[in-house]
């Protein structure tokens, strides 16, 4: 009964989404207040029904209702309850439901916080979001119904993929999707602005906090995914340029360009049509990512079992969304001229370069991701593109970007005298050179080529990000302190510096060795001694495992004990490696069991990963900076009050 209620709720949600998608848009066009006022209640109703469906599916999972096909395929009696709950989005149908649920949540939030916007504009935004919901609900009801029954019911379920039996499944997809789907809001604002033809600077001010929040969630989501794959899937790697990783990374790159170009549009009224295009592109790339994951046309660890009908639906949906947005853009964009100007040395120029470089990076990642498909369609050859190519292609635009960043964040709008910028950046430059060479040379014992470039770049950003906070701290009493915009920018860029430092050090000085180890043997990796003390059998709730005890010492001194496991899940009989990790702020020590080699010996992967945690903490700090900036006062005061006192425009953003 409960699954049928869930299914019915989805159908009702679709009906409400149609109302939400069509009536307010018609109302805004005809200036009919009654039709426009339907937007908010319809959005709330749609969300309530999707949430109800979600609860129904969760109930089916927790109640072991194996007469539901999706539950039977992705759960099992002995599965721990937490994994039963996160298994709701562990495969295709449920993750689509999660996607729709999150879109609904964003829509309700937009409805709640858009009361000070002009009524037709808010109606259009909610209408566009409603149309997007229609697309996803239709997709679910037509091709991917999570509530489909199976007769006879499976007696006790065929279990969740062991890889997904990890807390990572509970937090990574929801946060990632919140970011992904959040770009739908920026997209809806852009489309609403183009529909109304009213593209003044206030549009950018309304969009900016939403976009920044979505971007922050996406940053954290990607970082969590990287961390998860590091300890669970990747044998200690943190990024593989897998097509699905790229699918989330491309919207991030374009989204990063978007939040910077929105700054220019909001402050100076420039780059308007470019900003619109980026808003369309960021969401289109999110949809493209969905298409790549669902259709299974690319070889990827994330590929779900494939179904051509699903791929086709998403492709058509993608075509309709992107096609109509671009058609609207072509119709409206030429009206967006601006008379404002700027000098070659100014914040505007730096942000322009930021955008150019980020878009080039995104284009290269897109090229590398899709080229195997293009080659296969044109020549029939099956090729793949290796991570080394992505490393090179991505570093090319990023190296100039990180060096420009340090100067750009201190440049004034319109015109920045070179002498002033030079004076301000003298100290950060000195710090960057000294620390950037000293760290690799004295701590890690080698300072060559790219290592120095990376480490100088990292310290350059770290030092440059501290300039504004330090000045605010040492300011004369009575003068105003740093605004949240500037604080957020400084924090986010500090995070970029941490990230660059982590990537540089772990790529240059990380050690990874595959070794043959028998109980009692010791091996030495990265200055640490790893001793295999013994192996024993242990039992989990739904798996058996062989657990190794490995003691780690450095110069004879005890550092820690790790217990990597080789698990066999009982239902699917799948083996899974659980790595043993001894974490630290400045290094991780990583041990994973491979295969038995005979005579009691095992192949073992042992790794020393210096500063690897800076990569993920850097991303979290970036997101934190975004949230601080998005909470700036000027996004909260109401429109009327802002028009009376336009003071906020003096501070840089």
């Amino acid at each position, binding site marked *: 009964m409960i699954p049928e209620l869930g299914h019915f709720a989805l159908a009702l949600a679709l009906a409400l989404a149609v109302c939400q998608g069509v009536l307010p848009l018609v109302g805004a066009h005809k200036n009919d207040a009654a039709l426009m006022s339907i937007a908010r209640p319809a959005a709330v109703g749609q969300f309530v029904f999707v949430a109800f469906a979600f609860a129904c599916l969760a109930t089916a999972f927790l109640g072991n209702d194996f007469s539901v096909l999706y539950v039977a395929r992705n759960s099992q009696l002995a599965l721990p309850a937490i994994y039963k709950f996160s298994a709701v989005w562990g495969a295709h149908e449920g993750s689509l439901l999660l996607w729709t649920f999150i879109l609904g949540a964003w829509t309700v939030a937009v409805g709640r916080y858009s009361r000070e916007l002009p009524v037709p504009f808010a109606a259009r935004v909610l209408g566009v979001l409603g149309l997007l919901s229609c697309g996803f609900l239709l997709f679910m009801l037509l091709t991917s119904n999570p509530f489909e029954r199976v007769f006879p019911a499976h007696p006790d379920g065929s279990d969740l*993929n062991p890889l997904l039996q990890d807390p990572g499944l509970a937090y990574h997809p929801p946060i990632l999707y919140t970011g992904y789907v959040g770009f739908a809001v920026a997209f809806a604002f852009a489309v609403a602005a183009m529909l109304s033809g009213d593209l003044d600077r206030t549009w950018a001010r309304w969009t900016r906090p939403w976009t920044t929040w979505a971007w922050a969630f996406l940053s954290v989501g990607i970082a969590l995914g990287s961390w998860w794959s590091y300890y669970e899937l990747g044998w200690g790697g943190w990024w593989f340029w897998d097509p699905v990783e790229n699918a989330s990374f491309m919207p991030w790159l374009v989204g990063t360009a978007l939040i910077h170009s929105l700054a220019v549009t909001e402050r100076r009224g420039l780059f308007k049509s470019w900003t619109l295009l980026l808003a369309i592109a960021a969401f289109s790339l999110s949809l493209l990512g969905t298409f790549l994951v669902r259709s299974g046309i690319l*070889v990827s660890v994330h590929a779900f*079992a494939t179904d051509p009908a699903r791929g086709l639906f998403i492709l058509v949906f993608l075509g309709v969304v992107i096609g109509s947005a671009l058609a609207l853009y072509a119709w409206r964009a030429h009206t967006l001229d601006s008379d404002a100007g700027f*000098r070659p040395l100014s914040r505007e120029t730096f942000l*322009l370069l930021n955008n150019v470089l980020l878009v080039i990076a995104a284009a290269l990642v897109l090229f590398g991701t899709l080229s195997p498909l293009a080659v296969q369609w044109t020549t029939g050859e099956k090729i793949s593109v290796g991570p080394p*190519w992505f490393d090179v292609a991505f570093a090319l635009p990023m190296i100039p970007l990180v060096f420009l960043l340090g100067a750009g964040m201190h440049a004034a709008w319109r015109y920045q005298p070179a002498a002033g910028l030079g004076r301000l950046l003298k100290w950060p430059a000195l710090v960057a050179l000294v620390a950037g060479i000293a760290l690799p040379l004295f701590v890690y014992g080698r300072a060559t080529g790219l290592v120095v470039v990376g480490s100088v770049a990292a310290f350059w950003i770290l030092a440059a990000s501290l300039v504004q906070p330090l000045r605010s701290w040492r300011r004369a009493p009575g003068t105003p302190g740093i605004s949240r915009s500037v604080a957020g920018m400084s924090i986010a860029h500090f995070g970029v510096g941490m990230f660059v430092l982590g990537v540089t050090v772990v790529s240059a000085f990380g050690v990874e060795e595959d070794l043959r180890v028998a109980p009692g043997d010791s091996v030495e990796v990265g200055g640490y001694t790893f001793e295999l003390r013994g192996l024993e059998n242990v039992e989990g709730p739904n798996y058996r495992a062989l657990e190794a005890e490995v003691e780690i010492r450095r110069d004879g001194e005890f550092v820690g004990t790790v217990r990597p496991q080789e698990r066999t899940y009982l239902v699917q009989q799948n083996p899974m*490696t659980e790595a043993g990790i001894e974490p630290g702020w400045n290094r991780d020590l990583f041990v994973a069991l491979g295969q038995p080699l*005979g005579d009691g010996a095992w192949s073992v992967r042992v790794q020393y990963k210096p500063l690897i945690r800076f990569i993920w903490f850097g991303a979290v700090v970036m997101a934190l900076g975004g949230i601080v900036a998005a909470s700036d006062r000027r996004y909260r005061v109401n429109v009327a009050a802002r028009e009376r006192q336009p003071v906020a425009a003096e501070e840089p953003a």
Partner: protein
Amino acid sequence: MKPRHQRLLAIGLAAAGLAVATALTLRAFRDNMMFYVEISDVVAGNVPENRNFRVGGMVVEGSVRHPPGGIDVAFTLTDYAHQLPVVYSGILPDLFREGQGIVAHGHLDENGTFVADTVLAKHDENYMPPEVADSLKRHAAEKTGAAGPAGDGAQ
């Protein structure tokens, strides 16, 4: 700067950046592009010269051996028409098993043995890399009557 100059500057910078990036990355692209070669072609010697390529197939039952002393592993891959001996030094993925479809990256040595530097087995037992499924299906179809195992492997 006036809007027209801004636009020219933007376009100029973008074009210059793209040109440099394209030139450099296309070069790197050629070096990093790996072709998929069918086992039958590998056995016949039709492989790309002096560069790595990918092969895919089923691991033959009972073919996995660990020579004593190291962490090397040797096994045989088949597309049900031909067999290819493979050696690999390192840790195999969790789902590497006899009778399972895998993909390997590497090159051919002078004895006709494939020296793999990466072995991939997907983390979903129902999932088969599309290129492997393709070639298995084709060879199974050629050998009508003996098509048994490839049928369910290619689903």
